[in-house]
């Protein structure tokens, strides 16, 4: 099974992954467990509409609320970063010719600062695999597994987190993900409802 090794000084998270982390209900703990710094671009923090379903268990989709990143920023667990060089702006624009702005700026900053990219999104993943080959791409299952291993979390807590991701963020890793089986085994009680 894939063990994540954090090989860059910082991970910059794309909107897709931020939503998934927030939906887990354990974002604070997961961020604390990451040995490198964690950031989001100002575009993702300020301009993306980041929401999770917040209804009661079993009826999660009844309500939804905006994600509040402020507590993580105030705790210095998450930094908000802006493009700060001509090259970053240039690649932001270049990447935006194929991606949405959130993914494009995330990738441009990561490329020029040699950071990892936290992303769960298929098109962005294949684009960065092609365009920024030296960079590590990290996903939600990677971060959860890392936290679970570090924290020795019980299976029941993992089940809750995975259920929250699936129900409150409508996220499920695709079948090609190396941790797909692990994810399913952890949350195997869960039956999807439409």
């Amino acid at each position, binding site marked *: 099974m894939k063990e994540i090794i954090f090989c860059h000084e910082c991970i910059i998270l794309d909107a897709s992954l931020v939503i998934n982390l927030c939906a887990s209900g354990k974002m604070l703990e997961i961020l604390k467990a990451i040995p490198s710094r964690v950031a989001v671009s100002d575009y993702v923090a300020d301009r993306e509409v980041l*929401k999770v379903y917040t209804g009661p268990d079993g009826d999660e989709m009844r309500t939804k609320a905006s994600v509040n990143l402020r507590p993580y920023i105030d705790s210095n667990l998450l930094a908000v970063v802006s493009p700060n060089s001509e090259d970053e702006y*240039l690649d932001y624009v*270049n990447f935006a*010719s194929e991606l949405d702005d959130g*993914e*494009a700026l995330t990738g441009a900053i990561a490329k020029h600062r040699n950071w990892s990219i936290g992303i769960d999104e298929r*098109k962005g993943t294949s684009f960065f695999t092609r365009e920024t080959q030296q960079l590590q791409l990290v996903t939600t299952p990677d971060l959860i597994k890392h936290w679970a291993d570090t924290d020795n979390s019980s299976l029941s807590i993992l089940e809750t987190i995975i259920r929250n991701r699936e129900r409150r963020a409508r996220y499920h890793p695709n079948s090609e993900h190396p941790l797909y089986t692990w994810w399913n085994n952890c949350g195997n009680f869960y039956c999807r409802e*439409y």
Partner: protein
Amino acid sequence: MDKNILDVIDMSELGRELQQARVRCGLTQEDAAKIIEVARTTLTAIEKGDRRIKADELVKLAHAYGHSVSDFVRPRPKVAISQPQFRGPSLRSPEDTEKVEPFVEKLKQLALNYFELEEITRMPLTRKYPPQYEIEGLEVEEAAETVAIEERHRLGLGDEPITKILRDILEQDVGLRIFYIPIQPAKFSAIYLFDHQIGGCIAINSNHPEERRRWSLAHDYGHFLVHRHKPTADIEDHYRRKPGSERFADDFALYFLMPTSGLIRRIKDIRRTKNGITLGDVCTLATYYGVSMAAMTLRLEGMKVLPTGIGDQIKKGGFKFREAQEKLGLVAIPSRDEELPSRYQYLAFESFIKGFITEGMFARFLGIDRLDARHLAEILQHQTEEVTDKAIIDESIDRLPGTLEDEG
């Protein structure tokens, strides 16, 4: 990426798009120049395509104009729907023109998005447009009934009430691009545009009840059939004399939704069992044909089945259509209220699921946030699987040996 996009992009085109976006959000060149800290003359040069824009300038302007950078640099279809010129009584005043403008812009944007999704997925819309009908020399009413009968025949609708969703028929069997959007003020019923590449596009006021939306749809379909290249914004206005094109579209809607021969048959059926037509009968007919009480009484007055002016009396008497439908146990005509055509949603889903567009773009195409986009993707995935499964079953059935009767 081998090249910087700003080195290869058409600067005149980009400048023009930036200028349009600036004007749309109400900023002056002076305001925009301040945002990127350049002289107004430099901004003018950028908008003309004479001065190459820098990456940080593009980012700042795009955001100030309420756009993403992607809106300006991603490869999009080279289509520019020209600004429609609403002439004559189709728009009454400069005030009306100003009010309808944002909705025209929205319709254009949605139509372009639809076209872009078709290019991304390489699934162009199949147009089954009839040639434009020539009605010169015919009286308006005569022309409207003739065209309505021919179109009903062409679409295989016979002379029965249209019990299917009219929107689906015009989207799927004709190839029109139909969007349901909330238009304010309520007096605007619909907007019709035509572009030779994109085709016919209609925005229907989603705030109206389904009977009225069907009427607006049939009305604008009439425009499409006869005045194809003339944009229109339909306003409810009883106090002015309507031009010939509007009277044609109204009459077309009347005959298309309530064809004479079928309606006569139903009235004969009613008269066979009783002496006169009651209010309940009119309500039943209106429900059956999916039109309002006003439309049905107008039609029956025109056929001399009801005395002239009865429609006005019913209206003045405060007749409640919905309450009457409920009391009579009538089921209202089915409708599809989504802003976007089903095919548009499936194209966006196809693009997303195949990795042609990102989650953010998927959400943007659908005009919803990422979370709802994920949920919608799940629903569409589920539906696609069901359809696929059914296709497999059907295919299996086709492969089975002949039925017992065949063998017998």
